[in-house]
């Protein structure tokens, strides 16, 4: 039980499960001395000519840059024990010298294997072979080949000799298997000089299609990329950069969305190849997100164009706007008549109410002026759904913003008035107490005022105090309406963001091929028998969904709520204007 070897570590033999049924032969793989582990990649069958095997291995080593060598022998006893085969296999160690020399053997009808690892040098008594303690780890070659470890340990673009030397631990195993893809190219029906047993892909026919697609994708990408560059060149034309236009573009979420999509498409169809797996994954995610978006948009389009829904929608739109205006009128009339027994100033109340009523009147006439064209507008907007659901959602958000423009106006008037009052009151309150704000020291100082200053200040203070409830009520009501609109817009933006940034391809991969995205590995101890080497099964531990989303989330275009609830409440209290998330972000930039 005690190892007499030079490295005291237990020798780990990584053996592919697909080779368990293979005929006897030679074990081909890579020896990782740091961890004293042997990664078996394939089995070479009899008969073979040793020089051809060596030549083949040298070829593989050159293309894959992995130190592939013959690690030992594999003996699968199907019939009666053949002693001569055993001796023959022993003899092979003289031809393919390797340190240590592995001897794996599978008995007929037994699930337990025997394994010997022999060292000829470095043992305590020179000359006599020493044996290492061995542990067999089974792995699924296909899964290990295709899976991608997270987080990537070391970028595999080191072009120095043995590239896998950088990777440590199990990453080295993964790396070895991934690098020796060349070895697996040859399939079962190939009649080469060397017969190999390893994992083989089944989908040869499908791969022809893939090859065709790959071949065709180059020119298509080139064509689309040139088209896209034309579009972006047009959008960058000076005509669109005249003064008021960039401001309007930045305020319309449709333009933002279109710009975002254009960037994505340019990236997808860019002719240069993705360098590393994460970039490839990002491209795929973008592609799937765009495709899903367009598919959803087309579904919406077909739904809209079926059974004259566009007409229905257009017919419903004007009455809805009318209805909203009417409700607002009722609200204003209620506000004008001392609601809830509040101590409102009647004169100011009437003035404000009439002002807002006049605005609504203007708005209604505007809507009625628009009503003949509404159907055509809706039709065109519906057409935009073929650019994707997100685009039409952004247009919807913009339309909501336009249709509730009167609410925005009311809110701005109310907020400005309220802000003025609050500011005036706060400074007049200081005057009332005989204090003033010292700008240089950023604090409140005492100050001696003149008699007329005091008198006018107090007069204004009294007036403002008694007028405050009226203004505050109007402000409160219109702020609530505004918040409602902002919430609806925010929900639409959230949905758009979700479609934009969700890594759908990665999530689908995780769902259907969990081994492709590996967080690590897990081991299962297989059945034991005393005196036989320990057998473990290495399985891929898939990445959790949360990590997948976190790792592969696409960049969003600035819709973070930059303000906390506290600062929002503060702003609301002091009557500062609040904007929906996106515009706030723009303001910061």
């Amino acid at each position, binding site marked *: 039980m005690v190892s007499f070897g030079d490295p005291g570590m237990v020798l780990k033999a990584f053996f592919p499960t697909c080779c368990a049924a293979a005929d006897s032969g030679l074990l081909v793989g890579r020896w990782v001395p740091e961890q004293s582990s042997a990664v078996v990649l394939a089995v070479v069958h009899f008969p073979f000519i040793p020089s051809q095997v060596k030549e083949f291995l040298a070829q593989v080593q050159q293309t894959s840059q992995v130190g592939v060598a013959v690690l030992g022998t594999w003996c699968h006893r199907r019939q009666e024990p053949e002693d001569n085969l055993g001796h023959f296999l022993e003899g092979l160690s003289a031809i393919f010298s390797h340190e240590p020399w592995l001897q794996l053997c599978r008995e007929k009808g037994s699930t337990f294997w025997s394994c010997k690892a022999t060292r000829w040098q470095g043992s305590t008594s020179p000359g006599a072979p020493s044996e290492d303690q061995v542990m067999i780890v089974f792995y699924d070659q296909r899964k290990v080949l295709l899976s991608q470890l997270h987080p990537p340990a070391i970028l595999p673009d080191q072009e120095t000799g043995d590239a896998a030397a950088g990777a440590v631990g199990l990453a080295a195993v993964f790396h070895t298997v991934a690098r020796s893809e060349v070895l697996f190219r040859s399939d079962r029906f190939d009649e080469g000089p060397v017969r190999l047993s390893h994992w083989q892909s089944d989908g040869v026919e499908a791969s022809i299609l893939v090859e065709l697609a790959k071949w065709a994708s180059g020119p298509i990408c080139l064509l689309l990329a040139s088209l896209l560059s034309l579009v972006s060149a047009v959008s960058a034309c000076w005509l669109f950069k005249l003064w008021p236009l960039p401001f309007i573009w930045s305020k319309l979420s449709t333009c933002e969305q279109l710009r975002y999509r254009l960037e994505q498409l340019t990236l997808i169809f860019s002719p240069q190849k993705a360098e590393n797996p994460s970039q490839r994954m990002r491209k795929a995610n973008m592609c799937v997100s765009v495709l899903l978006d367009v598919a959803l948009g087309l579904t919406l389009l077909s739904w809209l164009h079926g059974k004259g829904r566009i007409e229905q929608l257009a017919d419903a739109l004007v009455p809805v706007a009318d209805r909203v205006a009417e409700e607002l009128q009722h609200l204003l009339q209620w506000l004008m008549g001392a609601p809830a027994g509040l101590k409102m100033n009647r004169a100011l109340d009437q003035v404000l109410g009439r002002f807002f009523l006049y605005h609504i009147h203007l708005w209604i006439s505007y809507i009625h002026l628009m009503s003949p064209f509404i159907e055509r507008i809706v039709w065109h907007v519906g057409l935009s759904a073929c650019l994707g659901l997100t685009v039409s959602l952004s247009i919807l958000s913009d339309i909501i913003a336009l249709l509730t423009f009167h609410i925005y106006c009311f809110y701005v008037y109310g907020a400005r008035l309220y802000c003025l009052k609050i500011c005036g009151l706060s400074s007049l309150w200081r005057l009332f107490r005989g204090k003033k704000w010292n700008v240089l020291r950023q604090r409140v100082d005492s100050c001696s005022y*003149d008699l007329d200053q005091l008198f006018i200040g107090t*007069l204004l203070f009294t007036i403002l105090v008694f007028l405050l409830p009226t203004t505050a009520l109007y402000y409160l009501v219109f702020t609530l309406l505004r918040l409602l609109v902002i919430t609806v817009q925010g929900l639409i933006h959230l949905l758009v963001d979700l479609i934009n940034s969700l890594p759908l391809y990665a999530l689908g991969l995780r769902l259907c091929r969990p081994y492709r995205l590996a967080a690590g590995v897990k081991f299962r101890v297989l059945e034991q028998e005393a005196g036989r080497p320990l057998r473990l099964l290495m399985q891929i531990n898939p990445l959790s969904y949360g990590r997948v989303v976190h790792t592969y989330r696409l960049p969003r275009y600035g819709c973070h709520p930059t303000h906390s609830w506290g600062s929002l409440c503060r702003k609301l209290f002091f009557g500062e204007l609040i904007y929906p998330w996106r515009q706030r972000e723009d303001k910061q930039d």
Partner: protein
Amino acid sequence: MSAQPGTSTEVKWQKVLYERQPFPDNYVDQRFLEELRKNVHARKYRFWAVVFESGVVVQQLCSVCVFVVIWWYMDEGLLAPHWLLGTGLASSLIGYILFDLIDGGEGRRKSGRTRWADLKSALVFITFTYGFSPILKTLTESVSTDTIYAMSVFMLLGHLVFFDYGANAAIVSSTLSLNMAIFASVCLASRLPRSLHAFIMVTFAIQIFALWPMLQKKLKAHTPCSYVGVTLLFAFSALGGLLSISLVGAVLFALLLVAISCLCPFYLIRLQLFKENIHGPWDEAEIKEDLSRFLN
């Protein structure tokens, strides 16, 4: 480290902390109480001087009383606003001339204030009050009368509390006191029937709360005898005005005035005898020097 005074009789105790001494921490010797002093800052008052000084309080109380009485007359419609305006203007003019005559223009030269500035201030008062009077009229329409009364009483009390009677205390703030009085007058004026009433009421409030105390102060400083006369006259007129409204109120107000001007000074002097204020080395250190030069 218990101390043995017997063994170290020659070692004298010193009242210092920076030297190690063979005494317990709380040790003091007989000389300790020698430094005790009593009533260092106590002052001797003369009765009539205190009564004279209490005239300011009496004056202010009377001002408030006169203001309320006039407002009541206006609210009842017994007093024509034109008459009040005329009287107010006349008395203001007289007061303005007196203000300069008393000290022979000394104060004006010191402050460097021109007559043009006075005229400007007066114009500002009148224009703003006149301009705002329609707003004042509708300002408190929806607020109940009791609320307004409560607010006014509160503000006038505040005016009396914070008024600068000449005492050097932290609570005194002439600005706040004047502002509270103006607030109260605006509140009361807004209950009057017409906007002209409101305008005249606010003007009157400025005269009685802002201008009249300035004249008083000057009178008191330069001609004490006439000040006493004016105070008495003012007090009696306020009492008379109150009497025409309510007898009980007048009696109570008279009692209050008497208490403030005679009873309070009497008790101040009596209670001065019982003063037992001790000073000694145990007092916390007091910084006598003016340290304001270190502030900059």
